[in-house]
């Protein structure tokens, strides 16, 4: 029982990352009709926003300490971050400690700007090109983005810890009557889950309750008619691209403390997020979210030792197996519409 509760928590946590990435991917596909293989790279850039903020905050004055020597026998360099000099050591260290939450403020404008730029400069020329060309050009872009990040930050993962206040784990089990250590779950992962719910809720209410969102939804359903009504749908779609990039970026920022960011993390998520989107049904936002959480939870259950004992290696293939079964039983994924990307 405790194992199931634990893996459900895990599944929700994994699912939040899948759902956030898939949500952005579906937004772009649903509005612009573009298959964006660079979406994983946007997630990765989000995570590196957190790294960048951490780097900026730890920019340091270097002083030489004549009493200590470095490994070559030269006087040791002592680094004091500017923020610590400016605000005093304690407040300064506190600010550095909170670099990941602060990075959210940094990432939103940066990611929206990157999204706009991508759409205006590159993607708009591909609206009327075949999907294969879109895939190729965005895949090329993804490679370029990841190589640029590798050039500046190296290939090794960069540790980006969460604030000390959220380090460690909560003994969940004790709260609901289990023995200690039965259900232990990290604070930051719970925060990640809540954060994703807020972002997903935000995107859905934006689309549902604002006029802007209404127009976008109408455009998703029937672009031509909305255009004929004299509404500049393209401009709104560009903005949606920026929002989708921001959602991927936020997913990345908050993911940085869970796993140290590296330049290829976007590619690791790319295939998975496409599977999620397709299982959810191309073009369906609720489908993407639902499929994200569902695959996250199933993946976690499949890694239970009891299940692995029955079917060895099931955790390696579960996501793909589920995808195949769903696509064979429900031709357009969980909540997909007819006629979308079936040619």
């Amino acid at each position: 029982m405790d194992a199931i509760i634990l893996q459900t928590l895990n599944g929700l946590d994994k699912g939040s990352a899948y759902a956030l990435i898939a949500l952005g991917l579906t937004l772009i596909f649903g509005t612009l009709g573009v298959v964006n293989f660079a979406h994983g790279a946007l997630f990765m850039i989000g995570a590196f926003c957190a790294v960048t903020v951490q780097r900026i905050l730890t920019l340091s004055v270097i002083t030489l300490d004549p009493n200590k020597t470095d490994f070559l026998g030269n006087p040791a360099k002592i680094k004091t971050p500017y923020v610590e000099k400016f605000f005093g050591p304690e407040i300064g260290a506190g600010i550095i400690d909170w670099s990941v939450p602060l990075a959210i403020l940094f990432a939103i404008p940066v990611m929206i700007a990157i999204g706009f730029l991508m759409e205006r400069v590159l993607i708009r020329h591909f609206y009327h090109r075949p999907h294969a060309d879109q895939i190729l050009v965005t895949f090329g872009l993804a490679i370029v983005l990841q190589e640029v990040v590798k050039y500046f930050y190296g290939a090794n993962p960069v540790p980006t810890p969460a604030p000390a206040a959220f380090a460690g784990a909560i003994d969940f089990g004790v709260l609901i009557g289990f023995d200690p250590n039965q259900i232990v779950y990290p604070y930051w992962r719970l925060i990640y889950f809540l954060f994703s719910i807020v972002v997903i809720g935000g995107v859905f209410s934006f689309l549902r309750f604002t006029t802007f969102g209404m127009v976008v939804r109408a455009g998703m359903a029937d672009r031509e008619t909305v255009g004929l009504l004299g509404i500049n749908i393209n401009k709104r779609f560009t903005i949606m691209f920026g929002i989708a990039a921001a959602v991927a970026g936020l997913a990345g920022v908050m993911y940085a403390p869970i796993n140290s960011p590296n330049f290829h993390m976007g590619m690791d998520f790319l295939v998975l997020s496409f599977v999620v989107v397709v299982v959810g049904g191309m073009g369906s936002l609720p489908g993407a979210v639902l499929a994200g959480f569902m695959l996250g939870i199933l993946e976690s259950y499949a890694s239970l030792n009891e299940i692995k004992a029955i079917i060895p290696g099931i955790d390696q293939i579960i996501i793909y197996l589920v995808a195949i079964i769903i696509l064979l039983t429900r031709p357009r994924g969980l909540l997909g519409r007819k006629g979308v990307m079936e040619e």
Partner: protein
Amino acid sequence: MFGLDKKDTTLLLVVTLLALLAPFILNPFPEASALAQFNAGYPDLMQRFVIYGIFAVGFNLLFGLTGYLSFGHAAFLGVGSYSAVWIFKLLGMNVLPAIAFSIVISGLFALLIGYISLRRSGIYFSILTLAFAQMSFNMAYSVLTPITNGETGLQLTLSDPRILGQQATADGSIPVTNLLPGLEMRQSVQLELGGWLFTFNTGYYLAAFFLLLAFYIAIRIFRSPFGLMLRAVKSNQQRLNYTGIHTRPYTLAAFVISGMYAGLAGGLLASMDPLAGAERMQWTASGEVVIMTILGGAGTLIGPILGAGFIKYFENIFSKINENILHDWFSFLPQGLQDFVVTIVAPFFGEGWSLSMGLMFMAIVIFLPGGLVEGGQRIGQLFRRKPAAGDAASSQTTPAE
């Protein structure tokens, strides 16, 4: 000739000449010159050019004709390689049975996956093939290690049975792959001509023979009623269904043929170098053949071969240009300027080869929607008679969907 019309005969002849003369064409620079770095006429790379060319030509039979975008084609290449290495381990080192076996096994595997995946179309089909390929890759890497030797890849050992051949050579080594006894895949003849050095390798010419055969069959399929039917599937499958034509047998046949091409490529890879690694089946490998085909020109006959050559060239030649070589190139500049220029270019060479490749992809897709073939056509038109503008328009404006 061979039942081809004049245009196709010319094309086949051109490809034949290119394949036969590749050792010359790919080594345009004298050995001693600084540009020798760009020579690609050594056996391993020449073999890769033609083998991946076969893979891409086969992929194009499915994608270029029917429009079905398989994202899991590398699985068939991988299965082909594993089958061939198993033949080398169990039977002996002759490549022909190994290649035949890999074509058959890949074909059967493609039949199974195609039968299931072709129940869906569009992106749903792509994801189904991707899912099968990723499952094969993950399992080959871990659970199936007894069959695939996992991470290391399936290799030959001295203790393999090889019932029809020898277990070990007289001097205690693992025997090498051969076409006939005494005619080994790795044998080469070298020709020195002035400052140039050209290598003619047995394995390469065997692979080139298969490429020509594969190319010839591809032309015949393109021009056959069967090929016409496949194109009809691409332009409007629904209409075909409404007219009472059951399209699935046709698409399934195309899928299996294309899987057998991949199996042939896999078998040839193993024949040149008897090792089969699981990475051959990873999604990135499947993505690579998609890129080769589109980059070269999907739906054209020669495009996939050009695309395959382009990518393999980048991967093998650009990745080896390190800073020392760059310094050599710019050694005519004064020291300070030389360092500066090398710092600017270095990120695009050596370890930055993937960056350059990504940029090239984007440039080609943006500026040459028809791939390298279109680039060739445009250059061709520059040299042709003046009213070429009209031709260009008619050859390009066909929408892809």
